[in-house]
Each structure stands twice: as structure tokens, then as C-alpha cells.
């Protein structure tokens, strides 16, 4: 029972309303996803009809093989690239943002206002594209995977720092003091005492940011162009030109790319919700 249930005065459940809600949810949300799955297993000719119909013949395996083989196994390379990108950048974000959020919450200094301002700017200000390319080129990181990883970390830090700062506030300072009295230095205090306690918020950050980085299209488009370096989102974009007459393969690609977020959603629903609604209860 939640509060809002009391808004509804009639005792018991409203079955008419439920039925309407479920039917509309099927029309609005389930049919589009079913359309992806059905089109992905159709043969080429039938998929070109673009209609919502049962496949004449199921070509799951063949479409799968075709889309994987397309353009010299571009999709396989893209999945490897996206995995490297996601793992490396999320790991970087977690460590850097946890350290920054920790000090930001614990240490009151005259810089705090300015730092908080910078963190919020990172959330609001759209990154300047061409100047960023210019900086990357000066550093020799343009069109390289490490460059893109650093970009993703830099753009994702703000959100993570906010989450970590809020969570560190719930850890009692007595723990820090006990560790210091036992002779722990700053690094030991953070990595041995605080970092393990951040586990639940780390899971939230990891899940939310890996979905974000995996689904990111703009940054790879600008900072890592070229077929060799394609990430999975770019394969969609490239295939959409090439497969404009082969909708079955295009939708097989969409289907494959939807699976990782779906798995995340099935296993980490609670953490995703916690991370994404953290703004609603912010102070």
C-alpha cells in the first residue's frame, strides 16, 4: 500500500482501469518491441513489407550469421570495442568519482562552493565538440580508444560525484577517526575502509553508467570515427544506410544491441531505479 492508493476512494481494485491500462501498455510498448523480434526473424522479402505479421519462416540463425558476418565481422569488433569502452570508462569513473566525492563531502573548505559549481556545470553544459577534438589531437588521442575512454570518464564524472557525495554523508565519521587512530594514512583510509562501504552505491553507478556508455552514440561518432573502431551504436547507424532494403538484418542488429541493457534491467532493476531517481530526493 502506498499513499497514493488512498487517492482512490473506492475500496478494492478498479478492474476496468487495470484492463484499460494493460491493453494500452501492450499497444504502446509491447507491440513495438514485438515488432523488432518478429522482423528480426523474417526473411528478407517479408521483412520489406514492414507489417506486423507472423513470419512465414523463421530465419533466426541465418539472419544472426548474416548480420555478424556483414562488413568483415564488423559487429563482432564493435561488441569487443564497446565492451572495452564500457568496462574501462566505468571503472575509471567509479574510482575517480568516489575519491572526489569522498573528499568533497568530508572536508569543508572554501573551495567547496566552487567545486560544487563545477560539478553541476558538468551536468548542464553541453560539451564543445570541435574544441574537444582539437585538444585530443594535441594530445595525440583523437581517433583512439584511450581518448574516447577518457572522454566518457570526463563527461560522466559529475553525475557519479553527486551520487558518491550523497552516499558518503551516510557513513559515520567515527569510522574514519578509528582508522586514523589505528594509523591509516589518507590512501589506506579511503581504499581499505571507505571504498568497501560504498558497495551499494558503486553497483548503482556501475549499472547506470554502463548502460549510458554502452548506448552512447554521440561521443563515438565525433571522437572515434572509422569502421575499424566502430562501437555497437555506430554499427546501427552504418547498417541503416547499407541495409535499407534488408530490414530483417537491421532489426536483428537492433535486437542484439538491446540484449545487454535488457540483462542489466532484469538483474539490477532496483539499483537502476535508485540511481535514476536520486535526483528526485536531492537536497
Amino acid at each position, binding site marked *: 500500500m502506498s499513499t497514493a492508493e488512498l487517492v482512490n*476512494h473506492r475500496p478494492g481494485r478498479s478492474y476496468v482501469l487495470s484492463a484499460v491500462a494493460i491493453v494500452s501498455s501492450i499497444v504502446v510498448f509491447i507491440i513495438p518491441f514485438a515488432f523488432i523480434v518478429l522482423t528480426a526473424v523474417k526473411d528478407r522479402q517479408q521483412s520489406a513489407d514492414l*507489417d506486423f505479421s507472423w513470419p512465414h519462416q523463421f530465419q533466426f540463425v541465418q539472419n544472426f550469421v548474416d548480420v555478424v558476418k556483414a562488413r568483415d565481422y564488423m559487429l563482432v569488433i564493435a561488441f569487443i570495442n564497446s565492451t572495452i569502452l564500457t568496462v574501462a570508462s566505468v571503472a575509471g569513473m567509479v574510482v575517480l568519482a568516489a575519491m572526489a566525492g569522498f573528499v568533497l563531502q568530508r572536508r569543508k573548505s572554501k573551495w567547496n562552493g566552487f567545486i560544487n559549481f563545477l560539478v553541476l556545470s558538468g551536468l548542464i553544459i553541453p560539451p564543445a565538440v570541435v*574544441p574537444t577534438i582539437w585538444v585530443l589531437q594535441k594530445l595525440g588521442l583523437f581517433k583512439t580508444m584511450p581518448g574516447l575512454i577518457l572522454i566518457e570518464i570526463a563527461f560522466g564524472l559529475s553525475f557519479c560525484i553527486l551520487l558518491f557525495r550523497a552516499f558518503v554523508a551516510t557513513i559515520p565519521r567515527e569510522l574514519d577517526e578509528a582508522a586514523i587512530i589505528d594509523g591509516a594514512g589518507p590512501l589506506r583510509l579511503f581504499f581499505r575502509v571507505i571504498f568497501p562501504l560504498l558497495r551499494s552505491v558503486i553497483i548503482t553507478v556501475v549499472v547506470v553508467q554502463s548502460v549510458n556508455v554502452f548506448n552512447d552514440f554521440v561521443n563515438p561518432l565525433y571522437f572515434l570515427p572509422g569502421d575499424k573502431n566502430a562501437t555497437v*551504436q555506430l554499427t546501427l547507424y552504418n547498417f541503416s544506410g547499407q541495409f535499407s532494403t534488408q530490414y530483417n538484418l537491421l532489426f536483428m542488429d*537492433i535486437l542484439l544491441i538491446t540484449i545487454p541493457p535488457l540483462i542489466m534491467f532484469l538483474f539490477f532493476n532496483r539499483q537502476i531505479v535508485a540511481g535514476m531517481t536520486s535526483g528526485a530526493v536531492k537536497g
Partner: protein
Amino acid sequence: MTVTSARPQDRVDSTPAAPAGGGKVYTPYSFWFYLPTAVLYSVLFLVPTFASFYYSLTRWSLFESKFIGFDNFVTFFQEPALVKGFTNTLIYAVVTSGSKVVLGLLLAVLLTSRIVGRGYLRSVVFFPVLVSTVGVGLLFQVLMNPERGIINGALGVLGIQGPGWLTDPKWALMSIAAVDVWKGVGLATLIYIAGIVSIPREYMEAARVDGAGSWESFRRIVLPLCKPATVTVIILSLIGGLRSFELIWAMTRGGPGFTSDVISSVIYKQYQAGFYGLSTAGNVILFVVVTAIILPLSWFLNRKEVDM
């Protein structure tokens, strides 16, 4: 930058119990912890942002730049294609943000009420948030096909001649906005659910004892107490709407013509065409638009909250 200029005396080894003398207190919360974050953030975010102000005033080839004053901005506001992108950005952001507030609140009330299949409904409304934007764009590009797409097919059954959603200049931008709402309303709903659930039950009970109807308690209790959630939804979706690029690029690439261009797609097009100065000017304009809307708005919304 300034953050990293940690004072070395912070690292002086003294016991925590040492008396505070001349600001040389030992603290385990070292400023060095900011260093990697500060370096990365400054080099890849702050430096380009500041550089953009200068390079937006130049004709630029990445290797050499020629100062040309405000010519880029003049071009931006004279060329009809670019002006269209500017107005479209504002329309798109306001429409998507407004729809997300209204639909999100309605769905949240529905999904916190006693309804069959609540868990299923919450999941299904939220899932599109996690799906690749480009994938959603391509999916709806097919569904919105004017002759063969299933949306117009379904409308045809009802005897309505559906428009060319993405091919008709009058509809293109609004069709993309509708897909944006379809994909993003789950997040707004989730934020509103968190807000509604945090309302103390006693308030609703008291209202009921006082004889308030469903509408009354919604208007007088749920709506005002959801204010923080509303502020979050408005701010988040406005930022997202003003910066939005992926969906528009996946669905129409700004077409037909330039009728569904927004500032972000103009930035990309000018970048592709090699007009780096003009592209950067677009970035500066986007920066100004976002801050000029978000900062006063969040100040205004948060101030009102304190008054209540």
C-alpha cells in the same frame, strides 16, 4: 585547475589530536584526491569549453585560425536553415519536457494506485529508457513509414488517413518529439513515483476524514508535495531536450530539408562540412541557450519551494 593546488602542508605528519595552529591541522581528506578528476575534467571539459568562446570568433581549420569577429554568429542568425534549427530546439525542448511532466505524473498516479499488474506496467513503461536511442529511432522510422508503416496501417483501419509522419515538414519535428516522449516518459514516471511514495500516509488519511474527494486530494496534497519531483523532471528533460541529437539524427537527419534540424544537428552538419568555426559558434549558442534557460528556471523553481 585551482582545485589541484593542494597545500603541501596538509600532508605534514601530525597526529589528529594535534592542536589547530596556523591552519596546519592534519587532515586525512587530502586535496590530492581531487587531482586525477581535476586534471581530466579540466583538460577534456573546461579547456574546450573556454576555447570554444575564442574559436567561435574565428574561421578555423584545427591547425590555423583567423579572427573574424562575430561573423559566425551573424551567419547563424541570418541563414534561414540555421535560424530554423534554433527555434526548433526551443520548441522541441518545451514540447517534450511539458509532455513528460503531464504524462509522467498521470502514469505515476496510475502506477501507485491499486491496479492489477502494477509491477509489469512499471517495468514496461520504464524499459525504453534503457534501450539504445538510435535503435528506437530506426524502429520508429519504420513504424512511421507513410505507406507501409503499422501506425498509418492502424489509423487506416479506423478510417483516418495518417500523415507522412517523418516526410511531411509540418509533422517531422513533432513526430520525433513524440518518440522522445515515448522513450523518456518512463524516467519521469519513475521520479514521480519516488515523490508520491514519499508523501506521508497521514496526510491522505486526514484529507479523507475531512471529506476530500480523489481530485481534491490529488490537487491539494499530491501535486504540491510532488514539487521536488516536478522540478527534477522539468530540469532534466529540458536539458535533455535542448541538447538532443541522437534521436533526430537517427530518424530524419534534420530533414525533410532542414525542417527538423536542431542546434546539435547543425553543429554536426557544420562540423562534417569542415566549418569548424561555425560549428563551434553553434556550440556557444547552445551553451548560452541552455544556461540562460536552466539557471534562472532552477533558481525560480527552488525558491518557490522554500516559500511553501
